[in-house]
């Protein structure tokens, strides 16, 4: 059976990984290539690179770096951050991305999902959604979680999938950074609503949180996290070993 994926997420600004990563044995902790290789060798199943650069120059640096990453790392690569047109898709796909994640760009123009899916295939389009509970309703937030769009999250995700999104990343604003576990009620709702892979994001603080995620929601496909991996609080080989021991099917890479 298909395995549950573990996905580290790296924020890249002006071609460098930000959020201060602490690893022994890495000569350059802010090099996306070195870090990507490190995670790949540790058994990460996929890597997500978010471009948080605002300038055109930074964008150019990002694609240069992406090309270097893709020429050295042979697992699936997802790229997000500032994707708002078919040209943006084209730009990162040419540099070796396998999937492109859209967030605010798709909120502004949902047709972007359809156009991209028709051009590159559903499997290439990842809908990333920032969600928070407001007055008992799951709402979509735009602009990096700053603006309440008023959109109902489940409706928006359903719509995105019907337009052609082949995967959904659900980032819970409410659990993000709290390190008390993934937002299970939200994720359950999303998994019940769509029949494409769902990637859980926001809230992982320990190995047990991943265990709970996959045990409580067998239909969720992947767990994504950033700082707990970067700071070595959760190490992927150990995480996978423990998941496997508790009967969750993961890819073991034999380290």
């Amino acid at each position: 059976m298909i395995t549950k994926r573990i996905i580290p997420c790296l924020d890249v600004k002006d071609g460098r990984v930000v959020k201060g990563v602490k690893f022994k044995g890495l000569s350059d902790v802010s090099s996306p290539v070195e870090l990507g290789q490190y995670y790949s060798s540790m058994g990460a199943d996929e890597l997500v690179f978010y471009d948080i650069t605002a300038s055109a120059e930074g964008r150019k640096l990002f694609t240069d770096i992406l090309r270097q990453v893709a020429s050295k790392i042979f697992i699936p690569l997802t790229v997000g951050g500032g994707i708002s047109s078919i040209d943006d898709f084209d730009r990162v796909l040419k540099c070796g991305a396998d999937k492109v994640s859209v967030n605010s760009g798709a909120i502004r123009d949902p047709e972007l999902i359809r156009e991209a899916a028709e051009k590159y295939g559903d499997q290439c389009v990842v809908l990333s959604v920032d969600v928070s509970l407001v007055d008992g309703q799951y709402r979509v937030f735009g602009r990096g979680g700053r603006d309440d769009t008023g959109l109902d999250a489940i409706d928006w995700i359903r719509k995105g999938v019907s337009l052609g999104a082949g995967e959904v990343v659900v980032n819970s604003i409410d659990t993000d950074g709290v390190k008390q576990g993934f937002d299970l009620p939200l994720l359950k709702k999303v998994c019940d609503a769509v029949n494409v892979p769902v990637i859980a994001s926001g809230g992982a603080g320990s190995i047990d949180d991943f265990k709970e995620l996959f045990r409580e929601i067998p239909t969720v496909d992947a767990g994504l996290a950033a700082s707990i991996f970067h700071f070595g609080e959760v190490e992927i080989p150990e995480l996978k070993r423990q998941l496997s021991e508790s009967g969750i099917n993961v890819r073991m890479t034999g380290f």
Partner: protein
Amino acid sequence: MIGIIDYGLGNLFSLQSSIKEIGEEAVVTRDPEEIRRADRLILPGVGAFRDAAALLAKDGLGDLVKQEAAGGKPLLGICLGMQLLFDKGFEYGEYDGLGLIPGEIRDIRERIPEGLKVPHIGWNGLQIRDRKNPLFDGVNDGDCVYFVHSYSAVTPKENVLATTEYGGVLTAAAARGNVMGCQFHPEKSGTVGLRILRNFAEKGRIR
């Protein structure tokens, strides 16, 4: 020199990089002379069978690949490129493939229980069915590779090299003589995938 056939579909950057990584040279080409000169050929592809078959038929590229394969040159199809090696595909209608391996490309929904997600996306384990072909030398049963597909090959048992389990048994790799194909993406399957590419580059020969 490995010739990666460029018929206008798919992103060939990773594939080319992975060939470089295993220490082989690769050229991405649609030039008949270069294709003839190559020691081995890879037929890549992402997208729908219908469009790919049409693009491949253009300028006689498909016929050239068939001739080269008939002459004994090792040929590896990847993902949609693998599907094109078979007689027919049934995505958006019925379309002819290259007919190099007997069989048809069918919707995986015909063989898996309802409710399972389609496409079949992610890392899944291999069961090696034929060890006479060297493509999976050094690869163990259960080793995971990366899949992204909604259709897969239905072919007589003697052509099946490896299978994977997704609610039902799906063909993960197939071969007939010097022609072989992987439904998964070896260029995205980490060290296991690189091993498979190396096997093709070094051995890629007939059983």
